[in-house]
């Protein structure tokens, strides 16, 4: 393979990863890292550096659309980001203390349980009855978006404290295990805070870019961001996530939920295998 062919191949695969990430509120590292290392034999460090760039590109490409179309709830994102970043800091401190083996197993079980919960609620529409939440009222976290199937969907955010708690835990885990908060934050926003799945995914998309940007600085200074690998990923993912962000509104929520359940199960199995090693 010549360098030019490599660039074009990585670019095209990244378009797919960007679309996927934009729809599910994840970074796309699930696709980028295995493709680069196993298929294209790129050094793992450069693959990881590229996947961090991919997370930011997914977020920038998709969130621009989501914020403009009000699919992402900007206020909820900033509100939860406090807990996530604080959690990530805690995780960084705990990293030397806690046994990773058990964390992987616990995390795997949490993921499996979350997948089950999301599967059981797969046909659930927007929240029927939301318990009042004075913090959500005070911070004006409630939102609405335009859905091609239901027209204007208004939702009331609830259980903000549980949402904060889970976001904090998501941050701690990402600090400890290098697992992004996306897979935990989407269910937290959807199941606990009662954001519709599309809003939850879009809001998560917005948040992952902010969190990843801080770690990206470290990867850069360590020389893990190889322009020859990261640039085609960035360009492809930006294009893919922009396309994906325009598709989200037109997908059925139940389809999105099932896809998310699949990803959660996949992560859960991977974590379990690592824990049992």
């Amino acid at each position, binding site marked *: 393979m010549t360098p030019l062919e490599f660039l074009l191949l990585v670019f095209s695969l990244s378009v797919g990863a960007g679309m996927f990430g934009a729809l599910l509120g994840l*970074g796309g590292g*699930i696709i980028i890292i295995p493709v680069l290392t196993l298929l294209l034999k790129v050094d793992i460090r450069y693959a990881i550096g590229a996947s961090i760039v991919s997370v930011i590109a997914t977020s920038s490409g998709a969130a621009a659309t989501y914020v403009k179309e009000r699919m992402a709830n900007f206020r909820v994102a900033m509100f939860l980001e406090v807990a996530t970043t604080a959690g990530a800091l805690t995780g960084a401190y705990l990293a030397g203390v806690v046994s990773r083996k058990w964390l992987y197993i616990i995390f795997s079980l949490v993921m499996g349980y979350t997948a089950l919960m999301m599967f059981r609620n797969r046909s659930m529409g927007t929240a029927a009855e939301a318990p009042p939440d004075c913090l959500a009222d005070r911070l004006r976290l409630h939102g609405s978006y335009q859905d091609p199937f239901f027209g204007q969907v208004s939702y009331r955010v609830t259980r903000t404290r549980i949402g904060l708690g889970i976001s904090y835990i998501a941050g701690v885990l990402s*600090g400890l295990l290098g697992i992004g908060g996306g897979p935990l934050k989407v269910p937290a926003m959807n199941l606990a805070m009662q954001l519709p799945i599309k809003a939850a995914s879009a809001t998560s998309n917005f948040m992952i870019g902010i969190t990843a940007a801080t770690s990206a600085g470290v990867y850069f200074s360590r020389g893990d961001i190889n322009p020859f690998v990261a640039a085609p990923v960035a360009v492809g993912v930006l294009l893919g996530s922009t396309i994906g962000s325009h598709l989200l509104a037109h997908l059925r929520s139940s389809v999105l939920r099932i896809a998310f359940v699949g990803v959660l199960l996949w992560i859960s199995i*991977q974590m379990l295998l690592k824990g049992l090693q």
Partner: protein
Amino acid sequence: MIESVQTGNAQSGTITDQKVRSIELLISGLLRGGALASLVFIFAGALLIFIDHPNYLRSPEKLHQLLLPGAIFPHTIADVGREVLQLRGPALVMVGLLLLIVTPVLLVAVSILMFAYQRDRDFVMITFLVLMLLVTSFLLGTTEHSPTSAPANQRGKGMDVKVGSAVGSGQWAENPRQIRGGKG
């Protein structure tokens, strides 16, 4: 929120709504602008790379030098700055990637100003707190990585990604062991 605007106190509601809208449009524009600026630099850099190295179009051997450990490219701000002035392709591409990385942080900073302008005191505090936490974790990540830091060295074996991921990235599969585990 839209509902309450449409029903209740229409006047104050519309003003709030316009304010919120202006923030949303600014944020969206900032993200798009950052991405576009980044693309411009990446494409300009790529063009220069292929002009400087025409054999990249044909020779398969060159690829390995670019992908294996020890590949040569600028990875400090100073190097990038110096090489950009010499119009070197990889440095221009790096500027593009750095612009992409900086955009979300800039976004948080800008939204503080916007909330302050709108006198939304709660959200000025929230976004300010987020920015402070981001800066803290960035600084901790950098210092933790310094070669004198013991914990970072201890974790070097197979967990060399830990430092970066410790700051909390947005995706899950950034641990090298994961991939190795997958292979065998």
